[in-house]
């Protein structure tokens, strides 16, 4: 390392490394904000990440990325939908917009002093402490395909949580946000056959005394209305990231 800043904490905890040319710190630029069903996250710009949690503190959250430039939280005021399982009974979100540091225009959010780390070009910022007064501490991760997915049909009654889907353990989830770029919410009705496909991947926040924390859930439905409905477990196709908002 010829110049710059490299900070590695205990257990090789990554903090910053100027050797990573092009690396951009994740800056919390907006939020917490409250989501509106099927409406683009306020303040979102292409290349941003969305971290979210249930506004009420518990329940499932999902995001549709069918248009990556307009991700939308999906939480209709509908526990089942037309077929009883159109939606995963997802809930309203509290969300953060997180942006790579060189795309952040705000300054002096934390006073006019602090630390700025530039990339090798001398202009792009790898980190600037003046860009935000908030931080996002990554507290849990799951690698791709590590969670088996599934989970019971919500309208079916009892709730069985799969331990392999447990990403973050903890009873206090007030500031725990999950990266929604790993989520998907898709519904497709074939225009000719009427067949219906659903695909959901997201997070379940569970509070209370029994195994509280953040869980992954994922499933797909293939439905031939009136004839056939098949439920499939769906593993996490993306790495899952859980962060704690610090402010």
């Amino acid at each position, binding site marked *: 390392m010829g110049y710059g800043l490299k900070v590695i904490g205990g257990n*090789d*905890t990554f903090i910053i490394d100027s050797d990573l040319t092009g690396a951009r710190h994740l800056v919390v630029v907006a939020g917490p904000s409250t989501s509106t069903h099927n409406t683009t996250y306020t303040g979102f710009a292409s290349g941003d990440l969305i971290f979210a949690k249930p506004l009420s503190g518990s329940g499932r959250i999902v995001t549709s*990325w069918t248009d990556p430039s307009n991700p939308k939280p999906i939480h209709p005021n509908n526990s089942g939908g037309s077929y009883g399982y159109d939606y995963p009974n997802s809930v309203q979100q509290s969300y953060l917009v997180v942006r790579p540091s060189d795309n952040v225009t705000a300054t002096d959010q934390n006073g006019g002093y602090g630390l700025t780390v530039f990339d090798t070009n001398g202009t792009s910022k790898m980190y600037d402490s003046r860009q935000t007064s908030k931080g996002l501490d990554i507290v849990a*991760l799951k*690698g791709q395909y590590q969670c088996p997915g599934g989970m019971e049909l919500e309208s079916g009654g009892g709730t069985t949580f799969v331990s392999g889907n447990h990403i973050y353990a903890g009873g206090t989830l007030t500031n725990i946000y999950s990266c929604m770029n790993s989520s998907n919410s898709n519904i497709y009705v074939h225009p000719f056959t009427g067949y219906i496909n659903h*695909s959901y991947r997201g997070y379940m926040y569970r509070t209370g005394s029994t195994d509280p924390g953040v869980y992954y859930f994922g499933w797909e439905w293939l439905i031939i209305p009136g004839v056939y409905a098949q439920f499939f477990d769906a593993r996490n*196709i*993306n*790495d899952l990231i859980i962060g704690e908002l610090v*402010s």
Partner: protein
Amino acid sequence: MTTYVVNFTLPEAETNIQNTQYPILVGDSTYLPDCTIFVKAGDTIRYTVNQVDGGSNTGNVIYQDTTNKDTDPDPDGVTGNNQTKTSPGSWEYTVGTGNEDKFFTWFFYGSVSATNPANKKYSQRVQTVRVDGAPRINYGTSAVNVNQGGSLTFSISGMGMYHEDNGAQLDSASNLNKNKLYFAVFDRPHGSTNPNPSVVLVQNYTNGGWVGSTNQLGKIWTSSQTVTLNIGDNMPTGTYYAYLTHYNPLGTGGDLANASSSPIGNPFYGSENRLGPNGSSHGNSAAALQFTVQAPTGTNTTPSLGDNINAGTNLSYPVDTNSGTITCDPTTFQPDVFTSNTTGSAAARFRLKNSNGTYPTTSYTGVGTTLQLTSGQSVDFKMTGPSGYSDTTTGRLTIGSVFDELSVTTSAAADDSDTDALVDTSSDWGLIIKNDAGNQIFGTGQKQGHVLVAASYSGTVASNGTSNPITIPGIIASENIPGRTAILIIDKQANTGRVNWIVYRTSNATTFTVYNGNAEARTFDYIVLRH
């Protein structure tokens, strides 16, 4: 033995008019144009004669013996020169084996007078030809075995189809349809029920069928008394039953088919028209010529699935390989092909691949199903690596009596794939950034995230295909693990209810590929974080 009933109406043909009186009742203008009907020794032939005048059956009909033609044998009960019966009247005779019974012509006329009262208005003659002969398979009558891809010779012994007017045997030619006898293959012997015997479409099997025929019938005639049946490469093994039949103009679709004629079975291969191999038991009593189709025995080359795979920390690693061309000795040998899961849930599956790169069936066949390979084909083989760490799955591809196996092994999970236990929250050294409120927002004790790349994949990835390698900038190979970098794939497909991508990190490198498990070609955005 069969009773044939030919019910016909006398045509307007004035007697005593040379060249037009007593026209021949032709059995079928295409298939039986030289006589009225074929019969076999032991069959009974009955002609029911109608005189229709003024729209109604009327008067008498008369059988006329004559010295101008050889009518013998006469119908049963005829002792004089003629016999009169009220219309409709029937005359019959049971055909014997004697030389006299090979052919006979009978003359009939009606009682209605022509304009010239000395003549009669209606007349007709019928001609019966006895077909002789005994079918043979490979020139015998014993049951024979034949390999798929082999052939059999069918023939007839003692064939006769004599026509006295011609003073010769009725004959045909390869490009004509008349005066033929037909071999047909059935899947069950005569008399089987539930299910009934069905004609085997031998021509539908690969390289199968009767020589000189495009349908299910092998044809012989007086001057061509043998025919070859090629057994298709994929004709199911088992025993089959072949019969030889003559044409029946009374059968469905025949020219003489009407409500009062019989039998009405298939005119080409109806069981009533069969000739027995013993030369005497015909029709429904005829025995079958049996043959059994067997899978040819032989050997084939051994498939090669390549080296075993170390998938590192890639779970459910997809394997897609090919066996290499398999050759068989003899080339007609078609070995069984199937897969099995030797270790773990390998999900071994396969499909056959033709030498020209096409596929008999594009979909893959899983464990429990067997297909037959043709020499020169290869086998596409797929399996899936373990879904967990430090595990192995092994799939096997068996072709004939040889096989190859392929194992996929995963290594132990990266120790820091779960980071909640790894974050150092106790150190009091290093760098700490606090906000105005005095709370730490960055630095020691917190794990930070940095975006390394956020981009759109260039192009699309085919269904069940894999993207080109994507390079993660900045990192070293050891950081290409879930505990150090996070890879996010964002599906961009509109109008879909399914999303299925799998990221494969390249071992000991800073790249990854993305497998498209969706049903159509798609593209995606991706974000890689260092954390």
